[in-house]
């Protein structure tokens, strides 16, 4: 599709677009429509929604700014991007708070109509940035978005509110023009979304076209951009958020194990989408129980696990704190259970809508008594599917609670997902006790794995009792015997450690030895890998080890760490994984790079830190 005024088309490898506005301006929808459109056009992508905790924070204030960043590219896109090439700002406050994320020379598209005195003052500007030369280093497009939106739909509606609500579509139309995008897919989405109200769909489509044709006439947009299709592996793809991928991974584990899925959960930002997603899939037999609180969420899951369901509970940091005692109950009863923690900024309520990796200590150690659990972490929106599946596999095959750590950045962010075939996923074999098994005892174990049998209520000949009191080894009666407690404590620990025999070796990106090993875990993989790749291209001897398996650590961890002159561990916390490594792998000296700002790493701050270390003697 080309406009009337043919302009120069420039090919680019990748581009970052950020949509920002008031929290009621529809920035999340605009961003999603653009990223879905880009995905269908064959670009690889990663997105990052950045929104306030309040649903409608005070109008036109910095606190109320909601944003959605999309990174699209021809090559593999690891992150949602550090700085943006195009910033769409719907009001003064959103421009003010996001200008620092715009590249030098970036195109700024602002709703010129929104820059009235009141809004400028509310945003904290001393002078109108549209008039002074503070934006001189950017390509500023002063688009009268509000008035032109109203004008474009005057034959369809005169309702002021409708016009106000459709402004975001005008901005989307401008973006479609800049990146030479076709409307077709987006129009189809709008038609489906507003099936019951075709007029709204018509209005939105009209406004998008108006934005597009406006852009076609703006001289400041001297050129448009083409981002060629990504060179992705062959296959069928879809766009997916980390939270939906997590939900689907759990469903996949249920199907592969033959155990019905039970989710006991309580709404909490940013984990709620997993609960909402699973509630949609009753046709797959998923039983979803929205509990009265976090504790009931996990306790109902433990009850369901006792009866033979693949039981899960989903939460975020404060919720994990509330679940601590019950996780201990799952540890001592040795029942399978997956606890998903979509981490957010803490402590306490902290930063509910921002991302952090600060629950690692809690996941590893946050229980009374000696209470080991398996801890694993996903590292991208799409691999949340595989790590949720893996969490289920380990929980059921090893009869243990597994904590899966993701974070708000992964959970809300979206990515292209190559659709797997269920037949290609590994089978899950829960150790279910057979009826009337004469050898069954609640704590009799497989000598190899130390895993006990899962004896389901209703099964003939296996009536037994388990619970939170310490039990006698093998026979499972209540026991306070000192030696027995030692034995049971050691067995529970050994059982979890044995999981190391069943997980893959730690992988390395780069050479096996060198000057610097960069270590990271969880949701930071994209940014850290991008930074390492920058240095590798410069010929520096830097490699990257990104950990998904934390408790237990992969068996080759020591071997990998030992081959580098320096090791730096990068985390979005004050150093939780690095201290865990200092404890578990004390042979090495660890440097650390930490950030606790509720924001993901940016590639440039990482490369700067790595270069500094490489220069130091």
């Amino acid at each position, binding site marked *: 599709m080309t406009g009337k005024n043919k302009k120069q088309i420039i090919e680019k490898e990748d581009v970052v677009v950020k949509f920002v506005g008031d929290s009621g301006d529809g920035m999340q929808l605009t961003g999603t429509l653009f990223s*879905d459109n880009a*995905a*269908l056009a064959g670009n690889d992508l990663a997105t990052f929604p950045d929104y306030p905790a309040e649903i409608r924070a005070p109008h036109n204030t910095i606190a109320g700014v909601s944003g959605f960043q999309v990174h699209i590219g021809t090559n593999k896109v690891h992150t949602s991007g550090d700085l943006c090439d195009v910033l769409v700002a719907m009001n003064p406050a959103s421009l003010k708070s996001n200008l620092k994320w715009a590249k030098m020379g970036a195109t700024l598209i602002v709703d010129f109509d929104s820059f009235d005195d009141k809004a400028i003052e509310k945003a904290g500007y001393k002078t109108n940035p549209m008039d002074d030369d503070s934006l001189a280093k950017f390509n500023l497009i002063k688009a009268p978005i509000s008035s032109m939106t109203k004008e474009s739909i005057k034959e369809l509606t005169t309702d002021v509110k409708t016009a106000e609500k459709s402004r975001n579509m005008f901005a989307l139309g401008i973006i479609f023009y800049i990146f030479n995008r076709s409307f077709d*897919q987006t129009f189809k*989405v709008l038609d489906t979304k507003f099936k019951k109200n075709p007029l709204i769909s018509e209005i939105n489509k009209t406004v998008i076209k108006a934005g597009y044709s406006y852009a076609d006439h703006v001289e400041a947009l001297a050129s448009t951009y083409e981002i060629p299709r990504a060179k*992705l592996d*062959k*296959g*069928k*793809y*879809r*766009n997916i958020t980390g939270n939906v991928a997590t939900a*689907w991974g759990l*469903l996949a584990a249920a*199907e592969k194990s033959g155990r*019905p899925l*039970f989710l*006991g959960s309580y709404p909490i930002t940013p984990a709620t989408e997993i609960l909402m997603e699973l509630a949609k*899939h*009753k*046709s*797959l037999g998923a*039983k979803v*129980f929205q*509990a*009265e609180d976090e*504790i*009931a969420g996990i*306790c*109902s899951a*433990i*009850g*369901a*696990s*006792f*009866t033979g*369901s693949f*039981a899960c509970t989903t939460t975020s940091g404060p919720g994990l704190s509330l679940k601590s005692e*019950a996780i201990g*109950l799952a540890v001592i*009863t040795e029942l399978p259970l997956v606890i998903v923690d979509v981490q957010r900024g803490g402590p306490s309520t902290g930063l509910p809508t921002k991302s952090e990796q600060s629950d690692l200590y809690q996941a590893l150690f946050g229980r009374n008594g000696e209470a080991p659990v398996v801890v694993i972490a996903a590292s991208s929106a799409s691999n949340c599917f595989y790590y949720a599946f893996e969490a289920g596999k380990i929980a059921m095959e090893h009869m243990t609670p597994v904590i899966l750590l993701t974070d708000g950045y992964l959970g809300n962010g979206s990515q292209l997902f190559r*659709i*797997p*075939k*269920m037949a290609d996923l590994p089978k899950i074999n829960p150790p279910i006790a057979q009826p009337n098994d004469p050898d069954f005892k609640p704590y009799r174990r497989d000598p190899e794995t130390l895993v006990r049998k899962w004896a*389901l*209520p*209703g099964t*003939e*000949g*296996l*009536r*037994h*009792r*388990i*619970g*939170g*009191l310490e039990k006698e080894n093998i026979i499972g*009666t*209540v026991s306070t015997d000192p030696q027995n407690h030692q034995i049971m404590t050691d067995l529970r620990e050994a059982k979890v450690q044995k999981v190391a025999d069943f997980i893959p070796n730690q992988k390395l990106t780069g050479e096996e030895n060198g000057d610097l090993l960069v270590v990271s875990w969880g949701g930071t993989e994209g940014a850290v890998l991008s930074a390492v790749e920058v240095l590798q291209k410069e010929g520096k001897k830097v490699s990257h080890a990104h950990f998904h398996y934390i408790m237990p650590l992969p068996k080759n961890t020591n071997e990998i760490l030992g081959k580098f002159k320096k090791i730096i561990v990068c985390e979005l916390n004050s150093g939780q994984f690095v201290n865990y490594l200092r404890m578990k792998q004390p042979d090495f000296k660890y440097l650390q790079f930490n950030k606790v700002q509720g924001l993901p790493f940016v590639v440039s701050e990482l490369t700067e830190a790595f270069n500094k270390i490489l220069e130091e003697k």
Partner: protein
Amino acid sequence: MENYTVERSKVELTKEDFVSDQMVKWCPGCGGHAILSSVANVFPKIGYRKENFCMVSGIGCSSRFPYYVNTYGFHGIHGRAAAISSGVKIANPHLSVWMATGDGDSMAIGGNHFIHIIRRNIDINIMLFNNQIYGLTKGQYSPTTPMGSITKTSPQGTIEHPFNPGELILGAQGTFFARAVDTNPKLMTEVMFEAARHDGTSVVEILENCVIFADKTHVQITSKDLRDDHQIHLKNGEPMLFGKEKKKGIRMRDSRLEVVEIGKDGITEENILIHDQYQQDPGLHLMLAKMTPPHLPMAMGVIRSAMYPTYDDMVEEQIKFAKENSKIKNMDDLLNSGDTWIID
């Protein structure tokens, strides 16, 4: 609505089928022994397969119960029995789920779960052992301890208004509430059987004596000389009569319940209320649950047993409906649903 009933036993069961090999560690004289014995009498009569019984508990003296009956059992953590048993029943509606709990476990630390299991009407039978004291921690006041009681944590007497469990249960939209005393095994057996028959959450409050820390706490209700006048055994369809000679009765006057005597002031049986445990409106049930001596007798037996859809049945209905009507039959369907595209 279809009921997901529990599979019946093909053979006749006896008390011995539920005897545990564990030593019962309640104090001699504890009301728990009598409750245990009643349960062992009731379970074989219910007629379910013995493997389909599942006993869940929280923490406290009452909550040792699962170890003392030979069923599938789960001894949980303090206050959470209602949440755990909810998971058990929702996950497997074919089980007969029983919950043993106490006034501390369910009225204090587990209060939240307790009201919500009742509100949802999940088909679970709750035995609430109400001894009005914390026994296992050795004698602190509980949410049902009468105001003014001297306990280890109230040396000058409690200054808290106690819960009446029945009031709380009906306030939480309870569909079944019964009451019994631990000294009356016949009544306990009777109400537990009724509880088992009821579809939905059934709560049986058992006034239990703690010989060590709250001995004779229920003496106003249970003592030989007072019990006939201070208890009324409600029976469905029968007039609310009590007293040694069954000459006393309950009638409604000026929207209040009062005790009258047959033959006095022209009172006949016609004036006496007839008990209807199945009535949907909980108004009168609540008044009956709140009756306390000396002005009114304490109501025993099944006070309320109203029919409402159960949560667990509705879960199964929704799943059945979704399975029949959704295009997504398996994970491959879901993975390939919605917007997808092929790259080759």
